[in-house]
């Protein structure tokens, strides 16, 4: 048992549960933030420091900030609608589906051990240099496509919010 893993496992799980049960959106967002941070700590453990940092600076520092921003702009605490879907079937469906997915995935674990063999992790695995090299060699095109994707998203977002309602 690795205490490091356990701590962040619990942290991520607890925060996630808090997130979907929190009453207001902002505490919920803080729950998500905690999940991100816990995951980022786990990434460090998985010899992916770059991803860990990106996790914080992109997910926590940009995406969630935007969501928080929108929360501040849109939510009115006095507006208290029900937490969960009114429709019972939705709720049940949600719960069942979620449980099903989890179960499915977990069942899949059974076979994991057979597929995965743990290779010796090479020296400097996950080092930023390696990352850059890899990115440049194998994923150059994807990289450019990502930038175009973002451009399109940007244009779309501006268009949508500038459109006269």
């Amino acid at each position, binding site marked *: 048992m690795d205490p490091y893993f356990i701590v962040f496992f619990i942290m991520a799980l607890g925060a996630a549960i808090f997130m*979907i049960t929190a009453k207001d959106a902002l505490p*919920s967002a803080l729950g998500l933030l905690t999940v991100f941070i816990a995951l980022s700590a786990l990434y460090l453990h998985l010899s992916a420091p770059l991803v860990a940092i990106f996790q914080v600076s992109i*997910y926590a520092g940009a*995406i969630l900030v935007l*969501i928080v921003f929108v929360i501040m702009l849109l939510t009115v605490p006095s507006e208290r609608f029900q937490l969960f879907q009114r429709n019972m079937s939705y709720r049940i469906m*949600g719960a069942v589906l979620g449980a099903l997915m989890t179960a499915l995935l977990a069942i899949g674990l059974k076979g994991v051990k057979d597929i995965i063999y743990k290779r010796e992790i090479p020296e400097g695995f996950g080092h930023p240099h390696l990352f850059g090299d890899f990115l440049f060699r194998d994923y150059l095109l994807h990289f450019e496509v990502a930038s175009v994707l973002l451009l399109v998203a940007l244009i779309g977002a501006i268009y949508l919010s500038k459109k006269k309602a």
Partner: protein
Amino acid sequence: MGDFTMFNGLTGYILLASLLFGIGAIGFLTRRNTLILFMCVELMLNAVNLMLVAFSHFRADMAGQVMVLFIYAVAAAEVAVGLAILIALFRHVGSVDVTRFDALRW
């Protein structure tokens, strides 16, 4: 549960990822605040990321990590456009309650 003995190994990570994914899915289907729905989507994406990184580590293959980077880009694009749509919707409906967004056209 013999398979979970190596709790800190790959299985642990996969377990966490699947749990997170499930929680995200449950939240997405049951909550009514659209913003929380967004966050649930993010949570699910994160579960996928975790899986990718975990596999990448245990297979000693960088591709997983690079994949995560692209997922970030996709997530960001999704959030940007999604929130913009949400705001546009909000201007009409005046609420972020997802059950209020029932008209297909406005």
